[in-house]
Every structure is written in C-alpha cells, then in structure tokens.
C-alpha cells in the first residue's frame, strides 16, 4: 500500500487539511478529497490542459503535480477564479462569444486566459494563441475562444 501524508493545501483562498497518498496528484486531491470537480482529467498525461490550475499565480498541470509538492503555494481552480462574482470577465466573455461547446476543456481555458490577462492586459492575437497553445479543444476549432479573448484585451481579468 502507498504511504499517506497529512497536508494543508491553500485552495481558492481557504486552507484545507487533508491526508493524501504520497503518489496522489494535485488533480486527484482537488477532485476527490476537496470535491472540486471543475478541474478536469482529460488525458492524465500533461497534454490536453483540461486540468490546468494556477499554482502561486502560474499555470500548472494538476495531473503532473504531486499534491505533496504543493506546500504553501496558493492554488486557484476554476471554482475560485471569479471571487465573489457569478462570473469572472474571462468566463463571461467565453459565455457571450459562444466559445463553450461540450465544456470539458473550458475550465482549463478559463485558467489559461486568466493567467494571460493578469500578466498582459492588452494581449494581442498572437499572444493569445501562444498562451492557449497548451490547451486542447475538440469542439470549437478555437475560433470563438480567440474571439472571446480578443473581446477582453484591455479589460481587467
């Protein structure tokens, strides 16, 4: 049997005490222990980007991140991205542009775009495409995702 460790994770601004296997990924812990199922398991291989979260403000593949390695770094998931609002500007833009189809990739795109606009509020098309190059979408052909992002350039994330 794998050994387990107690840990405290700071997720979406709140501390969570839990016990997790040393082999558990951040994705496992978010989905199972914390019941934050918005973060998706698409490939479990670090390719599709559906499991993307912010770790200390930077993009991280939660399927490739061991929970025990997270330490005190704050984690933000799609559930925490809009703070006290119903939707963050990124979420609202994706909804309004019709950029959400099956929706399974959407949490990853929300996180990736949030990170981009926090860093580059006036990101242009090429920066947007580069920032989303780690996220796969099988439904949309990406066009409306780019349109949503372009509608945000200049707005606060």
């Amino acid at each position, binding site marked *: 049997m794998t050994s387990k460790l107690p840990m405290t994770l700071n997720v979406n601004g709140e501390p969570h005490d839990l016990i997790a296997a040393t082999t558990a990924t951040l994705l496992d812990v978010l989905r199972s222990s914390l019941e934050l*199922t918005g973060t998706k398991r698409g490939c*479990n291989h670090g390719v599709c980007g559906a499991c993307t979260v912010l770790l200390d403000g930077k993009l991280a593949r939660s399927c490739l991140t061991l929970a025990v390695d997270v330490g005190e770094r704050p984690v933000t998931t799609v559930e925490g991205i809009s703070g006290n609002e119903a939707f963050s500007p990124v979420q609202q833009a994706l*909804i309004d542009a019709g950029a959400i189809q*099956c929706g399974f990739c*959407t949490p990853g795109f929300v996180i990736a775009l949030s990170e981009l606009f926090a860093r580059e509020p006036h990101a242009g098309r090429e920066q947007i495409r580069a920032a989303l190059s780690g996220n796969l979408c*099988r*439904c949309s052909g990406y066009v409306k995702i780019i349109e949503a992002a372009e509608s945000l350039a200049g707005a606060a994330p």
Partner: protein
Amino acid sequence: MTIGLNPPRLEAGDKATGRARYVDDIELPGMLYAALVTSPHAHARIIGCRVDAARAMPGVKAIVTGDDLKGPRSGGIIKDESMVARGRVRYVGEIVAAVAAVDRETASRAAEAIEVAYEPLPAALSIDQALAAGAPILHEDYASYVKTVPGGGHDNTAFDSSVEEGDVERALRECDVIVESTWETQAQHHLYLETNGCVADVDAAGRITLHATCQSVHHIQQRVAEELGEPTARVRVLATRVGGGFGGKHASNIHSIAAWLARAARRPVKLVLSRTQDFEIQRSRHPARIWIKTGARRDGTIVARDVRVILDGGAYADESPAVLAFALLMSRGPYRIPNARARGQVVYTNKLRAGSFRGFGNPQASFAGESQIDELAAKLGMDPVEIRLKNAMRPNDTAFGGEAVRSCVLTECLTRVRDAQGQAPPLKPRSGRKRGVGYAVMSHVSGLMGTAASVSLLSDGSVALATGCVDIGQGSDTILVQICADALKLPIERVSYAPQDTDSSPYNWKTAGSRSTYMTGRAVAVATTEVREKMLEHAGEMMECGVADLELRPGGAIGIKGVPKTVSFKEIAMRSLYRAGGPIAAHHGFVFDGPGFDPKRAAINRLAFANLGVYTFGAHCVEVDVDEATGAVEVRRAWCAHDAGRAINPVSCEGQIQGGFVQGIGYALTEAMQWNDEGWLTTVTLADYKVPGILDTPPEIHAIVLEDPDPSHPVGAKGIGEPSLVGAAPAIANAIHNATGARARTLPMTPERVLDALDAR
C-alpha cells in the same frame, strides 16, 4: 422571436464555472471502482480464466468473465460481440474480465491477479491480410449471428452492399476523358476530451440505474437490458453532461459491464476509462481503400462514376454495415451523374472495432471523390470550381440511390466561398513556401429513425420541454428551447429543458446523423403547436370568442385580434389545473418520414437503410502553404459554407462549422491510430496521437451559414453537425496540388507523404 438569435447556451455558465457534472464527477455512497482485464493478443482462443486469487483479495466485491455470460451475442447490425470476450479474443485490448472493488488500487491489483490462459492464433491486421487466401477467419460462427439487416458476409467480409444507376460500363466506354485512382484513409479517433464512462447503481429490487456520458440514453438502456437479460423497464439510464461525442459515444459497449458488476455486488460501480483505455477499447473511424473511375465528355459533363470501397471494420461489425451503405451513397458526390455504380465491403481485421464517427463514411468517400474531381478538371483543362458548378445537384434533383432532394444550395455554397476567398486581401507570400487554393463540395443528410418531444404548461404559464435528445456539446438543449419558446412567443428563460432520463424522457434514437435540430426540432415544434392550440381553446372559452379571433401575444398571453384584452398563460394554466380541461400538455413522436429508397432495391443491395433524411450541402475553400523542403503543410485560411435550412442559433452553427473543419484538419494532416506488427495500438496517449492545437489551426475559419428553409421542417431547419468535417481533407489535398502539383492520395497527409508525392510529380 427567439429563432435566429444567439442567446448564450443554457448550460454555458455551469460549464464556465466548473459546476457542470460530467460522469467522473459523480460519486455515490458505497461506490465501487471497476478495473478491466484486457487481451494482450490480437487473436487468441481463451483456454481458461482463473479468478480465485482475485476473488479472495480483501475489498473485491464482484468479478465478471466470459464464463458468466449465457445469453446471445449483442452488438449493432450484426450481433457478433459480447460485453466481455467469450471463447476468443479478436483484438489487443479486448475486455476479457472486469472487477469491482472498494477503491481503484484494489480493483487494479485484483485485475492483475486474474489469470487468463490463451492459445494465440494467427492474426489478420489489415484489409490485405484479411482478404488473403488462407487468412485466419475471425468469426467462424458468422452464419449463426443474428443480423438486423441481412448481410451477404462470408470469410472475413462482414457485409457487402452496392448501389447502381444507369449503365456505367457503357457510359465509360463513350467518355472523352477518364480518370482513375485509389485512395487510402486511416483510423481516426474521436478524441472527445472526456473519456467514456458510466456509474451504475442498483436498488434493493435489483433495478439498475446508469449515469452515462452518451449520445443516447435509450440506446444504452436497450443494449444493457439485452446484455443483462433484464426487461428494458428494469434498466434506467440518465445522461450526464457529455464532454464531446462525435459518434464515439453513439453505441454502447462498456455500460453493461458496470451494470453487471453493480447488480452482482449490490453496490454502485464507477467505470471511467483512462485515456489509453479509451483509445484501445472504444472505436475509430473506418480505415478505407477507395478506388474510383470517373468519366466525362470534353465539355466537362460528368457522365459516369464507378466506385469500389473496402472498409476495415476491425474485429466487430458495430455500425459498419450502415457506414458502408452511407459511404456508397455519398460516393457519387453531390453531382448529376446519370451512370453511377458503387460496390463495397466491410472486412473484419484483428484490431479495434471501427464505428460511427462524424461524417459516417462520407469523409472517406469525399476525400477520394473530391480529389478526383480536381484530377478530372486538370485533365480537361477546366477550372475546379467551374467543373463543380457545371455538374452540381440542383433543387428537386435525385440523390444517388433514389431519394428525393428538395432544398439544395450547393451552387450558392460554392460561389460564396469562391467569392469570399477572391475578395479577401491576399496573405503575404512566405519564402520557401508555396501557396495553393483548394476546393471541395459535399452533401450529407439530416434525419433517420424515431424521436419525440413533450411540452407541458406549468402553473404560472411557463413551459416544461422534454426530449430524449442528449446535448453532446453541439448546443441542442438551447436550440430545442429556442424552437419551443419561439412557437409560444415566450422568452427562453420561461422554458425549461429536462435532463435525459429513460424513466421520463420521450424516446430519441440518438444524437447522431446531424439529426437533433432537424428531427427532434420537428417533434418540439409540433408538440409546442399542440399546446398552443389547447391554450387558444381555453382562451376562447375564457373570453367568449372564436379561436380564429385570437392571437398569441409576446411574453405569455393570448389576446383578441385588434383588442387590447388578453388572458395570460398563467390564467389559462390555472383554469386547466383547477377548473376545466385538465393539465395542458402534448407529446409528438414520429419516425423520419421522407420517401426513402425503393424498398425492394434497398433490400437487394443491402443498403441498411429504408431512408436517410433531407439532404444538406456545403462547400469549402482553403488556402495552404506547403514547405517543399520539409513537406509540412499549413492551412492558412478557410471559408466553409453550409446550408442550415434556417439557422436557429447562428453562433452555434458557426461553432459547429469551425469545430468540424478543425477536426477535419486533424484527419487530413496529423491524426492516425497506428498498430504494430503484433496488433498493438502504438498511439495510446495524446502525446502519440496528434490532434490539432490552436497553433495548428488557422485563425481565420470563415463560417458562412446559408439559409434555404426546408419545407419538411416547421421552421425550415436542417442539421449541420457533420458536413463541416467532410470537406476539409479533400479541399486541403486539392490545395496542396494547386500549390505544388503533388497529389497526396493517402491520409493523413504527413510531411513524409507530401514529400513522397512531391517526388512522384
């Protein structure tokens, strides 16, 4: 009022915030986890399966192997499959046994502890190996299998069929110009971002409830009941949110395993596939070999086309006979060709089953056929657009096989993409790249089988809509609500849409065949109209006037024409519930009712369909850059025109077109499932199997939605889910040829293949 508008998708907020519930998000109290034992052999006899050690492990609650199955075989059109292998395995990855245990780790250790003894058999891994003299026969009991369509199978041929019109042999003899070639296409995986899976539960009486990511709750219910030997009423299936389908969640194969384990353990069981398992045990698009000979007169009039199609069906037939029939029916292309013949067969091979996938045989047929139209144009010295316009089908023509075509905007689609490309500011040339422009046209259908809708008036005058149509991401929830709301002049917020549940949803065959907006949309429109008629009768009685004097007013009221006086839907609802008439509701169900094929001829030719649907049309124009040093192809811009009949939600139409086109780019350039000489699939992760990312796709994909209302639909709509994928590969192949003179005849058109084609010029 709501048709033609673009309200945000009903569930978009849930999807954007992570609230939407997909199958792997479901956890039930006491839930067990399933693990699978799969075959390491492409072809082998199962000598025995020892489960004692696994059964004795603490935490193991149920095991199923082929020895437990007693009923007949199951499957699609040919009942050649069983939920776990019995007696023989026919592909690497085929499920041999399954375990349910208290956690994933225990389940997977127990699966490893199951010992299966095999006697390996020679395998047939390709069309050629399967058809060779002395080839190992995959299904020695083929003759005994139940077939829902009589098949004409023999040896490793699972099915054959044909379509013929006119006299092809004679017409070809009289042609001025003839072109003839063979094309090969690959196995493409659907790669829905959410892998397939389900959660099965069971009550004290043994009734099963399944939560499934799927394209039809009714199909799964039927299949699970059949495989478990239960009355259909004792299996309930509910759809979760679906993380993409594309045809890959169209037919069931894993649900019965979870249901069986849950029934045996009397506890809930989750079976969600890993990405690798999903690659290995679900489905692919059929690899195909297609030979076509097309003949024309000097003036460009196409007079004959002769086609042979061989589909590699993999180890089990699944939907193959229907895919074959559809490939044949689409192989003439959307042209007036008086003499056409298409003959085809599906071949069993020791690989993963091929099944339904967006386009359903049409992408293969159109890649070959539309590539050949360009070859014919070149030989005639004609412009590729002109030859297509000259031979294009027109309204009231007849499709190949004999179905009547009513609305047809093919020529408009083609001229629109040509003109849009011509008017777009040219992109700057890039050094070392050759630029080319390519075209492809296509037809498809929208229809098939049965569906239904029910509409009920609620106590405050808002409305509840229910259908069995599962939204797999294409937007049918919103579109069906728009149709319902429009017919009642209500804002969409006042119409609810019920999740799909076989206990309460009206029957729907499947989310497939580009049929939801057309078929279920028709049912919704008719049921809503019936509710409106009933409300008008109430209003007439309430206002003491004839129904003919009444009109619907926006926002939920009925008034007398020319008079401000109204009664509200709420007043009508209250009257119906408490005073007179009873609850107002309507149910409308139907089966696709187009004229279809001559039934005798369809049976003789083994067409697997009585009728298909209404025909839809489209055209693509692409610009590509080809690097002649490396063979790399980049799609720079695309214009995709498609006929929506009437666009209920134009933004969703555009999303379908753009998304389908990009899935078509993957099919054209990068995606291929590959097997090694032992029959092992080698492309089992997203690192091995390349789907287009954002940098692999053109930022400009111009979706052009044409609207020519179809008379058979109350609001004129037709489906557009599939055709957008169909034109991508031939348009790209034609653009590569336009740029370089090289003709790639094998998909995907990888840099290596493009270099080979460049060398062969």
